[in-house]
């Protein structure tokens, strides 16, 4: 692997990982709060992309970038206020089923409103094309992906400051673990939950806004990214923001380097002096390259971490 290819793959992996983190951050926050996985989380990602598509057709990409995430956040808050909060008193299973059903409803609604085919949501012309200063160094990397990384890092920083350095963050952290105590101190815990849920959805919406045109905006976009985001938060440890961050980057890098690695078990065996031939037992398996099994690697990681460290990288809960 040349150093240029290595750098490009590194950038590809990190930018994909950061996008995953935008999605996983909201999901893991909401999990710490409700104790339940929000199955509809990636639906908000999809809504974000469609809102951005619609708004950018009307008023341009930049206003859409600013408007779409808060809109998705308001929508998420409404779902919490008039949906989840009512279901909450019946326990976790109804909540889970509620979000599950919601994801199907959103999937159908999006198809009714925007159709089943992909919609044309292009990258803004200002960010089209490769990065000039990287190109001078012999690396072709799209400007838009750099922009994605910048947005994700900015949000990450803001989130960290909010949670660790402000009074609101203090109340949120306390409410996540000890809601009764926080309530007794005179804080409106349901409103805190409402805010966290809305903010989590807004983050997912933001991921949709910048991911929708980097990839493709279509009704199945929620489903395809859903599985991988669950891997991220389980791997990182349910409820742990730092864990989700590490897991996102790790998965992004595994994705980028896995897809391009030509290494195989047969190659490994040859390098230690035992070269298998096509006649060797199990040769087709031995000859499979990492690139061929790359799509399974995230799920393999999921299974392994559940076996060896069930609470995930940085998780605190056992269950």
């Amino acid at each position, binding site marked *: 692997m040349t150093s240029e290819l290595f750098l490009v793959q590194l950038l590809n992996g990190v930018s994909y990982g950061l996008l995953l983190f935008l999605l996983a951050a909201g999901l893991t926050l909401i999990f710490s709060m409700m104790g339940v996985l929000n199955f509809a989380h990636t639906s908000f990602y999809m809504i974000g992309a469609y809102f951005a598509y619609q708004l950018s057709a009307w008023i341009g990409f930049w206003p859409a970038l600013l408007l779409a995430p808060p809109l998705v956040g308001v929508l998420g808050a409404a779902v919490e206020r008039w949906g989840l909060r009512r279901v909450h008193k019946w326990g976790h299973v109804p909540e889970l089923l509620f979000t599950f059903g919601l994801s199907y409803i959103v999937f159908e609604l999006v198809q009714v409103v925007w159709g089943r*085919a992909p919609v044309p949501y292009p990258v803004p012309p200002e960010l089209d094309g490769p990065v000039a200063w990287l190109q001078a160094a012999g690396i072709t990397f799209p400007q838009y992906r750099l922009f994605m990384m910048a947005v994700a890092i900015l949000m990450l920083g803001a989130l960290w400051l909010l949670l660790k350095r402000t009074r609101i963050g203090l109340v949120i952290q306390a409410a996540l673990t000890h809601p009764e105590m926080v309530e007794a101190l005179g804080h409106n815990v349901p409103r805190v939950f409402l805010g966290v849920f809305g903010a989590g959805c807004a983050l997912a919406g933001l991921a949709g806004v910048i991911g929708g045109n980097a990839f*493709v905006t*279509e009704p*199945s976009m929620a*489903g*395809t990214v859903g599985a991988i985001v669950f891997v991220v938060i389980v791997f990182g440890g349910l409820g742990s923001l730092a864990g989700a961050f590490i897991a996102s980057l790790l998965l992004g890098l595994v994705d980028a380097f896995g897809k*391009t690695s030509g290494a195989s078990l047969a190659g490994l065996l040859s390098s230690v002096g035992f070269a298998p031939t096509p006649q060797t037992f199990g040769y087709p398996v031995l000859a499979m390259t990492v690139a*061929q099994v790359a799509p399974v690697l995230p799920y393999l990681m999921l299974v392994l971490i559940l076996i060896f460290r069930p609470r995930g990288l940085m998780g605190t809960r056992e269950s």
Partner: protein
Amino acid sequence: MRRAARAFAVAIATAAAAGTVMAQGKGAAKAAAPPAQTVKIAYLDPLSGPFAAVGQNILRHFQVAAESATAGQLAGAGVRFEIVPFDSKGSPQEALTLLRAIADQGIRYVVQGQGSHVAIPLSEAIARNNERNPSQSIVFLNYAAIDPDLTNSKCNFWHFAFDANTEMKMEALTDYMKGKAEIRNVYLLNQNYSHGQQTARFARDLLARKRPDAKIVGEDFVPLGQVRDFSPYIAKIRAAGADTVITGNWGTDLVLFVRAARDAGLTANFYTYYAGVIGTPTAMGASGADRVRQVSYWHPNVENNPAEPIYLDFKKRFNEEWYVLASYNSVTMLAEAIRRAGSSEPLKVAHTMSGMKMTGLMGEIEMRAADHQLQQPLYISTFTKAGGPVRHDAEKTGFGFRTEKVIPTYVASAPTSCQMQRPAKP
């Protein structure tokens, strides 16, 4: 007034078709007209999941084809055609379960096309079913699954292929690439299932024969409909120094691939099978212009285009592209076979269709008796700016397909190793 004019045009077209058919049918035994009835055709393809957009769009193709076969009385007066949709979800298991339901509902004709991974087990299950329950025989009209095994090692009497198979398409593509000196380093990227693997295999074999000087610098398989981010593959293709990419990918797997290539500034040309499929032109937009080529049996800008009115009508009615000519050919050929057989009994119809020649929408077509593979010409086209010969742009993108080369039927044809077991004629 408009409607009356259209009805008149249909009437004329029908009369003309009937005329040619009569001329052809002279030598054959005269059959009585089939009785008035409704012939149900099961449409067994994904209507949900990642490939739902394609599935829904093609369902409408078939509904339109059935409407026009009914209105034109192609199978005789009073024979109506009806499409019954079944959602296979793109899964072989699901499709086989639904096949049971289809047989139980008395439906005798099945159309399916999206994915050879479904078509192969389906074809085998239908053959088995017909052997065990001859009274519930089913005919399989395959409009788009193009694994050559279907008409070679795994061929059977009840399966009819209306799309050109991978081997024929690759034969056509390489025939075009033969004359392109700029092709030196070729990269193969395909979906990891039967169709993708066959595409890669035939690309290797045929390039070695027709362009021994061109090098294959790399090869990758991606899982069907699961990859979001293709940029790592693009980086790899660039590092391999490829100037040409051959891909059999379709749906989102092609869209995301082409977009990632453009975002990363990869300048290689793309030789594809499915650049015209719904959603792909939109997603490609300017990024695909002049560097995405397609091999297909039709595109909206072919010269002498009798399918143009159907294309325009479909576009107006559904605001979607019409491109699956096989939907029209398969329903029309079925109707014509029913008319010639004088019955919609599957065994009689299948025997009539085997080896049948008729005038299709784009000229003479033949359902080759040896393997039930439709023989038809193919087109190599380039995705380019609309205007001039590119009369119709795809999905309002301002870009459309322009013919580069017409590959005549005899070139696009491929030999078969099929040894078909034919049930006795009734």
